């Protein structure tokens, strides 16, 4: 029932976004919650938690953050970025914020799932393709393990890290320790020059020059061995959406 309701609401949104209303570009619907769980993946308490964390993230950073889940069947042939564009156009466009970040997750069986994070406005500068790709990968690994609440929590945490990078001071003693080990190896190598007594390995200084006489030589092919090393590649890709946002998507998984 809830799925049918969502599909109906979304169809209405699509109709309006198709340009039927002349003032669609400037008209904002009433505000919606940051989390739109169309695929019904979360419990009520999980929804509250994610909603609160998204709202807090938005308020602290002056940007809008949203998470949308949709069933792959419902999506059909429609591109996942269209969802994001529609939401942005109708709920986040022209708001008094620095930018908007929308995560859309299309839920389905294995090989049908997809994650897409679309950035609008100034959020494109903060959330570069590389950083967004990292967030997509982090969310993807939680979704693969089946913990959707954790996946969206990771989205919030990683987004916060991008906007508010924190220096971990525990790295300082680690850097100093590594530095000491490197320096010690170098100093020991320098000190090893103090030992100058060693046997000669060969008699190179006593070879009569140009006395090498090669009378016979041959080179024969024996055999070959071939190794195949699988490429470690990220299937993430980034592109501009039709709605003016910058999208990074995981590809189907």
């Amino acid at each position, binding site marked *: 029932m809830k799925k049918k309701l969502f599909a109906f609401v979304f169809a209405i949104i699509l109709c309006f976004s198709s340009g039927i209303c002349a003032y669609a570009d400037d008209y904002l619907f009433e505000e919606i919650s940051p989390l739109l769980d169309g695929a019904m993946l979360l419990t009520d308490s999980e929804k509250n938690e994610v909603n609160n964390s998204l709202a807090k993230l938005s308020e602290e950073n002056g940007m809008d953050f949203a998470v949308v889940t949709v069933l792959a069947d419902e999506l059909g042939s429609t591109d996942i970025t269209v969802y994001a564009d529609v939401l942005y156009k109708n709920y986040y466009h022209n708001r008094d914020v620095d930018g908007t970040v929308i995560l859309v997750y299309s839920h389905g069986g294995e090989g049908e799932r997809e994650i897409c994070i679309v950035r609008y406005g100034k959020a494109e500068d903060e959330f570069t393709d590389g950083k967004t790709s990292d967030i997509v990968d982090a969310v993807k690994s939680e979704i693969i393990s089946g913990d959707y609440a954790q996946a969206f929590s990771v989205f919030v945490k990683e987004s916060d890290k991008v906007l508010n990078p924190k220096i971990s001071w525990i790295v300082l003693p680690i850097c100093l320790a590594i530095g000491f080990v490197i320096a010690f190896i170098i100093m020991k190598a320098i000190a090893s020059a103090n030992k*100058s007594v060693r046997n000669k390995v060969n*008699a190179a200084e006593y070879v009569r020059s140009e006395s090498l006489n090669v009378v016979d030589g041959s*080179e024969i092919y024996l055999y070959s061995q071939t190794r195949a090393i699988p490429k470690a590649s990220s299937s993430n890709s980034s592109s501009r959406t039709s709605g003016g946002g910058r999208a990074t998507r995981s590809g189907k998984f």
Partner: protein
Amino acid sequence: MSTLTEQKCPCCGGAIEFDVSSQNLKCPYCDTEFDIAAMKQAEEAASAAAADDSVSWNPQTAQWQENEADNINVYVCNSCGGEIIADHATGATSCPYCGNQVVIKGQFSGELRPDLVIPFKLDKKAAKEALKNHIKSKKFVPKAFTDDNRLEEIKGVYVPHWLFSGDAVANINFKGTRTRRWADSKNNYVQTSYYGIFRSGSLEFNNIPVDGSTKMPDDLMESIEPFDPDQAVDFHTAYLAGYLADKYDVDVDACYPRANERVKSSTSDAFRGTVQGYESVVVDNMSMNIANGSYKYALYPVWLLKSKWNGKEYTFAMNGQTGKMAGDIPTDNKAVLKASGLVGAAIGAVMFGIYCLATLL
């Protein structure tokens, strides 16, 4: 017992020494110089006209235990009559009483006569200076060690060496590899091809020195190589004047293996250099024999310097021909740790700075 010989100045009768700078014999008392060849002729004339040698032998009065006296010889200094005790290998030494330089004649005559000698080209002063520079050039040397006063002994010694020459005839099998890389959309591929490589031929070696004295550490003598045998001259006891010398106490047969080892290594390297176009080449197996092999017995000049620090003795050797110095120097471990701490802190700070920049940007 053998007789002793001394090089006496025909002008004033003082003990003459071999002078490094002029490469002649020089009397330190009247400054007269004598050409080696001229001294030879004078000696031959003197021995033809001389009456019997004045040789005096002291009977041994002490009671030696079995084998205790086997390696000890006692001589009498012709200048002061003092007893000089030397081991069986000593060829030239100095009287402990009057400092007179003496050569034990029998040690370098007949079959024991060296074929060649490289005279000293550098004097004691140069040896001291070289040691100073050798220590100065090293890092993390304890400050107390650099004190000059700790130099306990410095002596010029002719060290007996066996010189080996010959042709190394070798057959060597190598294993070589070549690598090809390519990729498609899914994988990177690495193909390693193995080849068997054969080389046969010869390589000539001249005058590979092997230390013929048990008193001299082999690694110390090899560390101050090379000597230039082209500057060697025919042996004469006159060159030993003013210096210590030992005859060999390691037979040529015992020195062959060391020479063979070095020849084998150089032969393998030389033939390895003819194998081109492979990413890696290793020796699979090798057979070698020596053709036209010969050996000579030579005395090479070495300055030995001994220093004591922290209850431990440190021996340095300088090539008396080229000036090359070798000798292990102690390391101040506290200084190493202190430097590691300072440099490590700088490296750590740079790494942390890079981490901060990467995080914030």
